[in-house]
C-alpha cells in the first residue's frame, strides 16, 4: 500500500514538474508596462479597479478602443483588478517599481500617492478640467494629478409615503432638514414602532465608508477632520465643542435606538425590506430604490445640523505614474479620454453624476430637472472634499477608529483628543508632508 502511495507521489511529482516547467515559466503581460513594438507603436498599460464591474469596465474599454483606433503612436492595454484589493495591488507594484503607465485612483488617495512619488502631474489640461466638477479634479499643493468622469453624492433615502405618514416635509436641495426637524421625525418613527429602526446609517460597512459617510455630519455640526488652513493639526476642529456635539449626537443615534449600532452588510436590502424608514447612502442606490419604490422614493439632501449640510466629494479618478516611459503618450490618452462624450458614456453606464454640464445634458436623468439631477445639485452645493493632504489615509483610519469607539460607548472628548494627538503626531513625524 505504502509502496503504491510512494509510486503515485513520485509519478505525480514528475507530471507536475513537467507541467510546471512548461506552464509556470510563462509570464503575464501586465507587468511589462511600456514596451515599444518594432513598428514604433508604444504600448501603455492601463490599470483600473473595475474587474468586478462589467458595465464600467466595458465603458473604459470602449474609450481605450476608440483611442487606439484614432492614432498609431500608442496602444493602450487595459488590465482590470477587483476594487476591494486594487489599492494593495498598486502599492505592491509601486514597491516593485512595476507601476503601470495610466491608472485610476480613488480620489482621497491621490495626494498620498502623489507625495509618495507614484503619480506625475497632469499638464496642459487646465482649460478642459475647468469645466469639470471641482470634486472630480484631484489636486495636491495646487497641482492637478488626476481627473474623474463622475462623482457620487450622499443622500438620505426614504419615501414620500413615510414622510407624509409621520408629518414631515419633503426636503429640497435648497431647504434641507434642520437637525431639529430630522430628530423629531426619527422620534415619531421610533415611537410608532412601525420599523425596527427609524434610520440606518450603514454602520456595518468598513474602510473608507466611515470618513466618507460620517465626516460630513461632523462638518455639518461645525467640526472637521483637520484644520485646512495649513493641514498641520486637527486640534480644535476634531476635538472642539462642535466636534464633541457631533460625537454625542452620533453615539445617541445608536444608544437611543434610532439606528443599529452595527448595521447588516446590506443596509439597503434592510431598507427595501421595511426594517428601516430612512437610509443614509449614496447616489448608487438610485436605480434599485426607484425600482422598488417608483416615484414614491425621496433622495433627500444632507441634514443641516447648524453649519449647513455636507457630503463627501471625489470618486475614482485617472492619472499617470512617474514610472511611465512615455509621459507624452499618457497625457495624450488622458486628454483624448477627457472629452464630454466619454464622460457621458462612463457616467451613463455607471449611473453616476457626470462631471461636466455638457455631459450631463447627454445622460438621461441627469439633465437639468431630470430624475437624477438632484444628485448633481447635492454634489454642487454640499460637497466638502476629504482633506487633500498626503496624511489623509492616516486621518481616515484614525477617524474611523474614533467614530467606532464613540459608537461603542467611549467617552467622546477623550476619544477625539486621542485621535487629534495621533493625527498631529503623524503629520509632524512626516514633516507635515512638505
Amino acid at each position, binding site marked *: 500500500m505504502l509502496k503504491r502511495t510512494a509510486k503515485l507521489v513520485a509519478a505525480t511529482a514528475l507530471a507536475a514538474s513537467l507541467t510546471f516547467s512548461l506552464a509556470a*515559466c510563462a509570464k503575464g503581460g501586465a507587468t511589462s508596462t511600456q514596451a515599444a513594438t518594432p513598428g514604433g507603436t508604444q504600448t501603455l498599460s492601463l490599470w483600473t479597479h473595475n474587474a468586478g464591474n462589467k458595465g464600467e469596465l466595458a465603458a473604459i474599454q470602449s474609450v481605450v478602443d476608440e483611442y487606439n483606433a484614432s492614432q498609431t503612436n500608442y496602444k493602450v492595454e487595459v488590465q482590470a483588478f477587483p476594487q476591494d484589493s486594487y489599492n494593495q495591488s498598486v502599492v505592491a507594484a509601486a514597491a516593485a517599481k512595476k507601476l503601470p503607465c495610466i491608472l485610476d485612483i480613488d480620489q482621497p488617495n491621490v495626494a498620498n500617492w502623489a507625495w509618495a512619488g507614484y503619480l506625475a502631474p497632469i499638464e496642459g489640461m487646465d482649460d478642459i478640467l475647468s469645466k469639470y466638477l471641482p470634486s472630480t479634479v484631484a489636486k495636491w499643493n495646487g497641482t492637478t494629478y488626476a481627473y474623474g468622469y463622475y462623482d457620487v453624492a450622499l443622500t438620505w433615502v426614504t419615501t414620500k409615503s413615510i414622510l407624509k405618514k409621520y408629518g414631515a416635509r419633503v426636503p429640497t436641495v435648497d431647504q434641507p432638514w434642520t437637525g431639529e426637524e430630522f430628530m423629531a421625525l426619527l422620534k415619531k418613527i421610533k415611537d410608532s414602532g412601525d420599523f425596527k429602526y427609524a434610520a440606518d446609517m450603514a454602520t456595518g460597512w468598513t474602510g473608507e465608508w466611515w470618513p466618507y459617510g460620517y465626516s460630513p455630519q461632523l462638518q455639518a455640526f461645525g467640526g472637521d477632520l483637520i484644520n485646512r488652513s495649513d493641514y498641520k493639526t486637527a486640534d480644535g476642529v476634531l476635538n472642539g465643542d462642535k466636534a464633541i456635539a457631533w460625537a454625542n449626537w452620533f453615539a445617541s443615534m445608536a444608544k437611543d435606538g434610532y439606528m443599529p449600532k452595527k448595521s447588516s*452588510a446590506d443596509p439597503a436590502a434592510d431598507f427595501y425590506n421595511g426594517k428601516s424608514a430612512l437610509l443614509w447612502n449614496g447616489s448608487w442606490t438610485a436605480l434599485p430604490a426607484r425600482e422598488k419604490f417608483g416615484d414614491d422614493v425621496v433622495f433627500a439632501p444632507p441634514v443641516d445640523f447648524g453649519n449647513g449640510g455636507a457630503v463627501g466629494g471625489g470618486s475614482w479618478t485617472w492619472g499617470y505614474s512617474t514610472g511611465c516611459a512615455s509621459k507624452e503618450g499618457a497625457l495624450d490618452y488622458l486628454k483624448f479620454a477627457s472629452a464630454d462624450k466619454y464622460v457621458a458614456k462612463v457616467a451613463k453606464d455607471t449611473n453616476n453624476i457626470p462631471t461636466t454640464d455638457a455631459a450631463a445634458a447627454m445622460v438621461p436623468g441627469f439633465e437639468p430637472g431630470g430624475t437624477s439631477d438632484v444628485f448633481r445639485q447635492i454634489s454642487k452645493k454640499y460637497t466638502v472634499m476629504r482633506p487633500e493632504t498626503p496624511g489623509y489615509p492616516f486621518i481616515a483610519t484614525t477617524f474611523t477608529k474614533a467614530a467606532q469607539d464613540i459608537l461603542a460607548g467611549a467617552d467622546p472628548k477623550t476619544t477625539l483628543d486621542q485621535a487629534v494627538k495621533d493625527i498631529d503626531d503623524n503629520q509632524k513625524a512626516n514633516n507635515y508632508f512638505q
Partner: protein
Amino acid sequence: MSTVTSDHLGHVADTVRPESHTAGERRAWLRPTLVMILRIALCFVFGLPLIFMIVSSFKPDTQIFGDLDSWAAFLPVGSLSMDNYTGVFGRVPFATFMINSVFISISTVVLGLLVNSMAAFALSRIEFRGQKVVIGIVLATLIVPFETMALPLLWWVNTIPYFDGSQGWLDTYAVQIIPFLANAFSIYLFYQYFDSIPKELDEAATVDGAGWFRIYRSIVMPLSGPAIATVAILTFLPAWNSYLWPLMVVQSEELRPVMVGIDYFKQMGSGAGVSWGQIMAYASMITVPVLALFVAFQKAFINSVASSGVKG
C-alpha cells in the same frame, strides 16, 4: 436473628438494589446522551455557516437579508433560482481561476513534499557539524508570520532573474509556487517522523550497498505515508486559500487564483453594488470541492494526523 437480619438485609437489598440499578443505568445513559448533544451542538455551530452559504447562494440579495431574522435563513425556502451561479460566470472567469488554483496548489504540494522531505531526511539521517543549529534555525522561522516577510519577499522575487533571462518573477505561476515550497513546519513534521523510523534499517541497506538517496527513496519515504498525507493536506490548504501574496505579485487576470476572485463581487459605489448572493454562490463553488475532498479522505487524514503527532 439471622433470619431477621437476612430478611432485613433482603428487604434493604430489595429496596436499594433497584434504585442503585436505576442510578447506574441513568449514569450510563446520561453521559453518551450529553456527549451526543454536545456533538450535535458543535455540528450546528460549525455547520450552520456552511448551510447558510449554500442556501443563500440560491436566493436573491433582498431575500437573504429578509430571512436573517428567522430560521428561514438556513432553509431553502422562498424565491430560489440559479441566477447567482449564472451571475458568477458572467462576472469572473471562474474556470481560469479554478484551473490556476488547482495547478498552483498541486504543484506546491508535490514539489513541497519533495523539498521538505529531503531536507528533513538530511537533518534526521546525515550527521554533520551544526546539524542542531540548522534544526533550531528552521524551527525559529515558524514564529515569523508571513505578513512580516511579504515585502522583503516581494523585493526579492522582483530582483532575481527569471528563467527567460528577464528581471523579476512577478506575474507568473512560479512566483505563486516556489516561495512556498520550503516550509519549516513540514520539515519539522518529516524530521519528527523520520526520527521514529529505526536507523538499523538504514544500516542494513548500507551494508547492501544503498546510498543516501536510495535509503530515502526506498526505505524512509515508503514508511512515511502518514507524514506525507499530513504534510500534503497542511500544504494544500494554505496554497488553496492564498490571497495576500497573489494580490501583490500577480497582475494578469489569467494568472489569478480563486481566492482573489471573491473581490470581484465587492464593487462599491459604481452601480455594480455588492452581490451577496453571487458571493455565496462563488464561495460555495470554491469551498464545496475542497470540502468534498476532505470528507472523502477524512479517515485517512485523521489517521495520519494522529500517527504523525500533529496536534491543534
